[in-house]
Structures are given as C-alpha cells and as structure tokens.
C-alpha cells in the first residue's frame, strides 16, 4: 500500500522532512505501528516519534489515536500538540 506522510512544526524541523510518499507491505497498519517503523530510521526519528515528546497523528485530516488503522491511499500526518489561537 501507498501512503503519504506530512510532518509539522518541531517534527518537520528536526526530521528535516515535510512530506514523503511511502510504499509499505499490505498488512494492517496502525498509527503506532507506523511510528515504530519510522522510529527505526535513526535515534533522532526515534526520539521525535517514540520519545518523551507528545506526538499527535491525523489520518485524512482527522485527529486520530495510536490505534487508528491506516489504509491504502491515506494521508497521514504527525505533529506536536497544537498551539494556535
């Protein structure tokens, strides 16, 4: 399956990635599993996605929790807790 991932704010800046297209094996993928997969890339990735920082995830523009399932073609995003207003 193919997904698109966006990173925002501190994550984007530290990971030096704003977006990427990813092709993954066709198995059940949750937000948590995707985080764990990406965290294998380096210590920095691990720290940003699985570390002490709170990371929020969205699928197709909806906030979701770690157990939400990702499907083929989904747009996933990772970012810190929001601070607008």
């Amino acid at each position, binding site marked *: 399956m193919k997904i698109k991932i*966006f990173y*925002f*704010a*501190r994550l*984007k*800046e530290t990971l030096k990635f704003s977006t990427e297209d990813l092709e993954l094996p066709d198995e059940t993928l949750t937000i948590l599993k995707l985080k764990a997969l990406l965290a294998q890339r380096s210590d920095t990735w691990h720290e940003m996605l699985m570390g002490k920082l*709170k990371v929020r995830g*969205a699928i197709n*523009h*909806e*906030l979701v929790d770690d157990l939400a399932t990702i499907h083929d073609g989904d747009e996933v*995003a990772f*970012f*810190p*807790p*929001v*601070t*607008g*207003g």
Partner: protein
Amino acid sequence: MTVRVQTQDFDVGFEINQLRVARPDVGAVVSFVGQVRDLNDGNTIATLTLEHYPGMTEKSLEAIVNQAKSRWNIMDATIIHRVGTLQPLDQIVLVAVSSAHRNEAFSACEFMMDYLKTEAPFWKKEATAEGEQWLEAKETDETARKRWEK
C-alpha cells in the same frame, strides 16, 4: 459560515457587521480578537511565526463551527486565523458568533476558542533575543476544552 486561514490582516468591524447586516433576526454578536503580545511567559517577543496544516486546518475549523451550531441556537459564525510571521500588536485570530440572544452567542464563542486552541492544527514559534523556540501546548487550554464535555 466563514472560515479563512490567511497571511493578511483582517478587518474586525467589517467581519462583525457581516454577521448582522441584513439579518434582523440577529440580536447579538459576540466576538473574540486575539493579538500577538510583546511578552510571553517572561520572554520579549520579536516575532511569532504560525505554521498550519493546509486542508486539515479549514476542515477542523468548519467542524468546530458545526459543533457549536449543533449545541447552541446560533445563526452564523466566522473564524479567521492568520498564519506566517507576525509581530506584537498584530491580530492573530477572530472568532465571531451571531444569535438571537446573548447567552448562546457567549457560550458558542468561548466554546469555539477553546476547541480552536486544542484541536485546530496551528503551531506557534516565537523568536526572542535568545533565539527561536516552538511554543508548548498549555495544560490550561486542555482543561478549558474539557469543561465543555460535561
């Protein structure tokens, strides 16, 4: 419903008037204007840069207006949020609500601000003499939002 995310400034008077002009059933318009302060948690702010998630931002702001409409008998609402680099005294956000009676407009406006602060994908980075830093989400904003779950 008006929902806009933009770099340029907005005219508060114009936007408030839009919610009541030609609407003689409107008795009340409550609005919130947020401004960039020169001091935040003791830091002197030079600039404040707002990043957002295009696509999701508009959708989440519209969802907030729709939630307010389902909870209170309001007539219309406007949310305008600026992004990009702002300075102290710049306007950041406008939330305005019209209704027949004041209590509903007050509740809906405060509700929308509390949800905007905790659910709309905006992030602030402040630049001070000591450098740049991303702002942390505040526990008090989360608490403010939670009171509406009662």
